[in-house]
């Protein structure tokens, strides 16, 4: 399960538990409160009855009841003396009987009286319950027992209403919690997604990219900073490795050039014995190969140390024709048929020398790995955003397993290694890097029985000069 979902779930559950506890407390407290008020009301009433009783007794003539009756109109009141003899009952108390409750706090007692007798607006059929309680009230030195009751509305509906309100508030708060925690979790995890995306995209050639820091000093920011430091170290060591190759090939080139010059100078001597000349020539060939290899290595490491592109506008078709022209001799020698499908002009803004190199490497490749009597086909496709060059050869084809590695340094397929095609296996790597620098891509498409097609796709870069002219 994703952290975001999990966080949302946990926060919501914790929030739900807290609000449920709070709601229960509020609910039950809310249920008790009205009865406490009733108790207080009855107590005050009983005490007032006591005072009134004392006034009547003090006036002499025993309990008259007339004033008490007026005084207790809306209440059910019975007064007993210490011998448990009823000394007074209010009008309501004459009408219905309520059992004497145990002393202490009040109780609810149901009766048959219709509720609408007391409360006009209430439902008609409902029976009335009474809240009643007894109090010992001292009057003129003797303790009277006052039994007081008052009709109460049923609190069931209020409870249901309170429960409904609390329930919906609970639902709303849970929804709010889910939404807020989901958003907050998303916000917290946003940088993590960003880190993940970059980590997935980063490779040998995009090591210069870094995670954007939020600079808020939180844990994720710290993680991002650590990752960036790791990228720095990786970048440095990759760079150092490439610089080493560049430096090494640069250093190698000077002595090789000197050796070649001196060998060439020696070979100018026509008096050399034939066998010595043979051996010197073999050395010269080996040296030339080495020279070429070192040069390619140097070029490749220059390209990988992100050489800048020198873009100019030129016609891709003209360049391709020019390149193909240089290979005419080779094509004829291997009895290869050349098919060229280029229509009109194809101006692009790119590094002419580097693109020329790509085309040369691809055509060279298509000739080198072709079968005698085969065909080399060149095509271009252009739309508004990109231009694609395909160079197809009818060679023996490349196994699927090898296709992925064809652009790797020094990689040569088994069959090509066996048949001594020459080349150091850097041509396609160099082409790949140049195309990459142009923001394009190079792909291979081959069946084990051939043909093999190399596709170069270059994005079209708008030329401000051409646009201005148009």
């Amino acid at each position, binding site marked *: 399960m994703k952290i975001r979902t999990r966080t949302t779930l946990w926060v919501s559950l914790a929030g739900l538990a807290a609000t449920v506890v709070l709601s229960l407390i509020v609910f039950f407290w809310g249920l008790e409160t009205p009865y406490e008020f009733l108790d207080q009301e009855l107590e005050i009433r009983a005490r007032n009855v006591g005072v009134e009783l004392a006034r009547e007794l003090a006036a002499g003539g025993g309990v008259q009841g007339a004033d008490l009756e007026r005084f207790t109109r809306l209440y059910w009141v019975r007064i007993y003396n210490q011998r448990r003899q009823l000394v007074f009952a209010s009008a309501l108390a004459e009408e219905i009987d309520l059992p004497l409750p145990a002393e202490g706090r009040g109780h609810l007692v149901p009766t048959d009286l219709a509720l609408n007798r007391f409360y006009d607006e209430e439902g008609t059929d409902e029976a009335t319950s009474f809240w009643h309680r007894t109090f010992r009230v001292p009057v003129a030195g003797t303790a009277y027992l006052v039994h007081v009751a008052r009709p109460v509305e049923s609190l069931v509906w209020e409870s249901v209403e309170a429960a409904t309100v609390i329930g919906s508030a609970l639902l709303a708060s849970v929804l709010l919690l889910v939404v807020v925690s989901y958003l907050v979790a998303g916000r917290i995890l946003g940088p993590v997604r960003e880190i993940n995306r970059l980590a997935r995209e980063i490779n040998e050639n995009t090591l210069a990219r870094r995670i954007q820091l939020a600079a808020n000093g939180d844990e994720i920011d710290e993680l991002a900073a650590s990752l960036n430091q790791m990228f720095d170290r990786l970048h440095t060591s990759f760079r150092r490795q490439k610089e080493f190759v560049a430096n090494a090939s640069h250093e190698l080139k000077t002595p090789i050039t000197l050796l070649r010059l001196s060998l060439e100078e020696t070979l100018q001597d026509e008096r050399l014995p034939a066998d010595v000349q043979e051996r010197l020539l073999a050395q010269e060939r080996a040296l030339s190969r080495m020279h070429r290899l070192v040069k390619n290595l*140097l070029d490749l490491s220059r390209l990988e140390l992100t050489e800048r592109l020198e873009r100019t506008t030129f016609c891709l078709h003209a360049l391709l024709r020019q390149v193909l022209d240089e290979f005419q001799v080779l094509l004829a020698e291997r009895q290869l048929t050349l098919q060229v499908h280029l229509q009109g002009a194809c101006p692009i803004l790119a590094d002419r020398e580097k693109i020329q190199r790509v085309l040369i490497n691809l055509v060279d490749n298509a000739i080198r790995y072709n079968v005698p009597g085969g065909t080399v086909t060149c095509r271009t496709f252009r739309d508004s955003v990109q231009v694609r060059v395909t160079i197809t050869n009818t060679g023996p084809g490349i196994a699927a397993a090898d296709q992925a590695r064809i652009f790797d340094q020094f990689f040569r397929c088994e069959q090509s290694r066996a048949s001594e095609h020459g080349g150091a296996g850097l041509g396609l790597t160099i082409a790949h890097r140049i195309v990459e620098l142009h923001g394009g891509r190079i792909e291979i498409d081959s069946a084990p029985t051939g043909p093999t097609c190399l596709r170069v796709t270059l994005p079209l870069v708008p030329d401000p000069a051409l646009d201005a002219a148009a």
Partner: protein
Amino acid sequence: MRVLIIEDEPELRAQIADTLRQQNYTVDTAGDGVTGLERACTEPYDLLILDIMLPVQDGFAVLREMRAEQVATPVLMLTARVEVEDRVRGLDLGADDYLLKPFSMAELLARIRALLRRSHTQASPLLTVGDIHLDTGTREVTRSGRPVSLTPKEFALLEFLLYNRNRAISRFNLAEHVWGDAFDPFTMSNTIDVHIRNLRRKVDDQAGEVIVTVRGIGYMVRDVQP
């Protein structure tokens, strides 16, 4: 003849490169001093065109360092500065000639030809062997006074061989100077043979009298004894 242009203004660079390519020169370009120096020190060039005002490393520094590396390639420097001191400084650092910006392409080409002559101790703009004349100025080849039509590559091959007459030039070297380093010299070796064959058919019908095959090495233009 292979020329390296070190110039940071893309338009001027492209313009010079195009002009030189039309004249059958093999052209490489560099847009800054560091790349330029790197190329100049590791590739065999017949001439360098070097702008003095460059980013990162200026032309003076490039000159000083390449001469310190014993690279003797003739250098034509381009400068917008009119001060005599600057020109003197450039020449003293090892430049062979200078051209004040702005310049005409015709003058640039003339200076390039003059420098190439000088570096090959060639007095006349006419490269001559036997009855074959190659006019470096008009880019025309005549044989016994009759014009010979050559393809650009044939012209470039002949020009390079004539400048380096009496030296056996390996196919590898020919590929480097006439085709540039984008082509694999090993793949080009047969191509060179075919071009030489065609060239001989046009300028040298007693095959091997003028353009001599040096066994195992390559080719050489030998002065014909009258």
